[in-house]
């Protein structure tokens, strides 16, 4: 086989015989063990969850347009933000990047054929479906109005469907554990020969650090929710003050999981940004090992700060002090990452395509979100800011501005790999811009009204806050439109996009050494290990309109571990 044919077959667009069409029928999807298909199913799932919870957000934002009642009663409003928060957190953002994108690209990045436990992977997806189903059932039957935090004793007293929702969340927890455990083992044992720890792309490090948290923290959520169910059904009296239990103890239980969980949300996002920065600056990532270790540092330190959500809850002074001190230590590894990304841009060759725009808007938005975390970590100011819109703005800046933005950046980056088709660049940029503008318009005013005293979870409010709420509501509509456009552009690309080759962006990590979309076995040829950030290793091939690993193209220069050959 001539080299050109070989390249076309393995690095070009794969119309036939890719993972999407290797087998047909719904069963071939429902029972698939292929990490790529599971990733795609997850992607569809979490997008649905995002849109559903996003609609709740729009509804509650509309209600807040005027101080008094518009169209929701107080009780209905409470259900709105509870379901918005719970679905966003448990069904959308926690599985989002690892389970959808991670599933798709992580094994390929390692040069593996699949994750370590494909059945468990599928199981994780179905647990996600079941868990989300229970949340939705709770929503449709009795609804839920506890806030996503399920604080006792209200969650024991309320007549809404706490048991169904809690059970759903419990199941979602197991789904998350399974994903994490799977990736943990995959990264440890499934790396291709020669793929050492420090040759892994930083996205893998991000997912790996996330997996550690998922495995260590999520079981505590499980037991917390079980105890909550037991408390409601049997009145065991551990969290219920009526029977001598302690509500503050519940908060300890809850945040021991949920604080580390916020790093479950952000670390994969940071991983994506690290990779995007390098690819679109066409430059070796600055400070690889610092970025890699800062992920692990965040994962570990993240376990030591849960009490910063409880500064005013009646937690004792000693513990409060400890938690505040450690909270600040988490900021340092995050700062290290931000500075390293900047240094990567320095003297780079920067293409401002959609993924890069998302990456830059990530730095902007996560910067604000993270820095406002410092106001909350400082004890004196948190006394004032706790449970106000300042906190709401903070966490949307990190979760939406951070994770959701990174997710979009990653999707745009890997979309050609996943579906073999290019998105429309113009619409991609428009979407990105709208999201950026809408987002800031929605959430920046919330900082101001929060520190002025606007408490959160308020269906009605005093008139002086109205102007901020109005800006915020308008912003939410723009943000919503932006998200819809961003998603529509991607969906459009799947069906109508321009066909593209295996590596249109010239990225150097292993997943790009396959055809687009990849074949069922990921690689049908022997892969060539190279530095994932050495972009000189990629050579543009005008025939394919795509890049190809140098060793495959230059006759005479043999690929490192052996001549490329079909298996």
């Amino acid at each position, binding site marked *: 086989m001539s080299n050109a044919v070989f390249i076309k077959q393995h690095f070009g667009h794969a119309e036939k015989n890719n993972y999407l069409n290797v087998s047909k029928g719904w069963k071939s999807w429902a029972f698939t063990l292929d990490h790529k298909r599971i990733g795609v199913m997850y992607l569809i799932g979490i997008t649905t969850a995002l849109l559903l919870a996003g609609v709740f957000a729009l509804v509650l934002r509309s209600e807040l347009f005027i101080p008094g009642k518009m169209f929701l009663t107080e009780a209905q409003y409470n259900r709105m933000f509870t379901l918005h928060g719970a679905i966003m957190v448990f069904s959308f953002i926690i599985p989002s990047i690892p389970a959808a994108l991670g599933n798709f690209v992580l094994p390929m990045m390692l040069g*593996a*054929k*699949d*994750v*370590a*436990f*494909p*059945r*468990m992977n599928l*199981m994780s997806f179905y647990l996600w479906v079941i868990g989300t189903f229970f949340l939705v059932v709770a929503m449709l039957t009795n609804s839920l109005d506890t806030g996503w935090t399920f604080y006792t004793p209200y969650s024991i007293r309320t007549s809404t469907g706490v048991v169904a929702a809690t059970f759903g969340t419990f199941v979602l927890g197991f789904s998350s*554990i*399974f994903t994490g*455990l*799977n990736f*943990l*083992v*995959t990264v*440890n*044992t*499934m790396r291709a020969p020669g793929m050492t720890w420090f040759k892994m792309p930083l996205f893998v490090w991000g997912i790996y650090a996330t997996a550690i948290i998922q*495995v*260590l*923290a*999520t*079981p*505590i959520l*499980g*037991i*917390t929710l*079980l*105890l909550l169910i*037991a408390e409601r059904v*049997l*009145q*065991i*009296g*551990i969290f219920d*003050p*009526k*029977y*001598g*239990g*302690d509500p503050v*103890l519940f908060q300890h*239980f809850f945040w021991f999981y949920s604080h580390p969980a916020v790093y479950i949300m952000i670390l994969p996002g940071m991983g994506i940004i690290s990779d995007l920065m390098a690819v679109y600056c066409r430059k070796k990532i600055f400070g690889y090992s610092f970025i890699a270790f800062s992920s692990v540092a965040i994962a570990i330190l993240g376990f030591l700060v849960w009490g910063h959500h409880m500064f005013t809850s009646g937690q004792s002074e000693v513990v409060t002090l400890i938690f505040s001190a450690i909270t600040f230590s988490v900021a340092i590894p995050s700062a290290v990452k931000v500075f390293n990304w900047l240094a990567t841009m320095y003297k780079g060759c920067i293409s401002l395509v959609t993924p890069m725009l998302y990456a830059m808007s990530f730095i902007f938005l996560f910067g604000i979100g993270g820095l406002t975390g410092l106001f909350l970590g400082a004890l004196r100011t948190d006394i004032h800011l706790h449970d106000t819109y300042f906190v709401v703005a903070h966490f949307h800046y990190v979760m939406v501005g951070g994770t959701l933005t990174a997710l979009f950046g990653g999707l745009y980056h890997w979309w050609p790999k996943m579906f073999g088709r290019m998105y429309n660049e113009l619409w991609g940029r428009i979407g990105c811009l709208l999201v950026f503008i809408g987002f800031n318009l929605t959430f920046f005013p919330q900082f101001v009204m929060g520190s002025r005293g606007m408490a959160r979870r308020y269906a009605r409010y005093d008139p002086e806050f109205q102007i901020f709420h109005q800006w915020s509501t308008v912003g939410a509509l723009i943000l919503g439109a932006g998200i819809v456009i961003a998603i529509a552009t991607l969906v459009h690309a799947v069906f109508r996009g321009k066909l593209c080759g295996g590596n249109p962006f010239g990225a150097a990590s292993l997943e790009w050494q396959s055809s687009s979309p990849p074949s069922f076995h990921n690689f049908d040829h022997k892969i060539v290990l190279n530095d994932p950030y050495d972009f000189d290793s990629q050579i543009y091939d005008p025939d394919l309109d795509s890049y190809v690993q140098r060793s495959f193209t230059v006759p005479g220069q043999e690929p490192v571990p052996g001549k490329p050959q079909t298996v």
Partner: protein
Amino acid sequence: MTSEHGDHHDDHEHGEFIAHHFESAEQQFDAGKLGIWAFLVTEVLFFTGLFCAYVLYRFHHPEIFVQAHHFLDKILGGGNTIVLLFSSLTMALAVRASQLGQNRTVATMVLVTMVCASIFLGVKAVEYSHKWDIGIFVRAHFSLDESHHPKGISPYLTMISIIPLILLFVFGAMALLYRFTNSLFRAAFWGGMTLMVAGYFIGAIGGYFYMKVGGGDAHSTAGKVIEHHDDHADGHDPGDDHAQESASESQPAGGAHDHETRDLHHDIGIFFSIYYCMTGLHAIHVVGGIVALAWIFYRSLLGHWRSDYFGPVDYVGLYWHLVDLIWIFLFPLLYLIN
């Protein structure tokens, strides 16, 4: 428990059980091994919540724990500990045999392990039902009244035993059925299952007679501790909150002493809340373990294990030892308090 079977592929019935995405049997084994250890980590943390609740309440109310442990029988608990330890031994032997490819030994040893697990559950059923008889429930429903002790077999025990009884008959029938249709392999499997369920009755009957004969003193001492304060036990809704308590306190009878004793009485319920959560969750794990063991038993009868493929036995073994480990801590924490 998916981690145990996430890594083999049934398609290769004869060949090596290596899934397509692994390079070698060793890689597969290593992955499985790390997977199961990580899984055990999640299990440990899962129980941590309960241990945490235990430690806090014991720290804050040591007196409750001293009171409460009188209701737990050291001999039954200790006996159960030894049963579990023995099952761990046989499990370890099963793993060893599987590494040597001795499938018959694996089958026997796993069977013994399962029977022990069932015995454990049987004894536990006796303990639980005895407590329920005299009104020892979780905090809110705690209504101790030892005079309620029934004469014959506790109705609760009968109720719990219905499921094992049904299983006993179903499994037994299956075994016989296959025995007579000459599917010896299946007969052996279902026979094993029957034996396994029989273990429950060994435990339950043993425990029952023990309670009849010697177990009487276990709670009689305890009875004295609280006997005079039982006037609140019935009719009084335990679900009052402090506001109401203060209300009733204002009634003439109210005195600091009465308040304290009654609180103690109710708070013992907290101990039992924790007790039921811990042992209940542990029991669920035992049941889960039995299911996993049954699967190992089945595959041993098929003769699947060889020195380069014994991962599942090893993984299930580790899981089983962890269940044992947890009990090793639960036993002194719950039964041995002074």
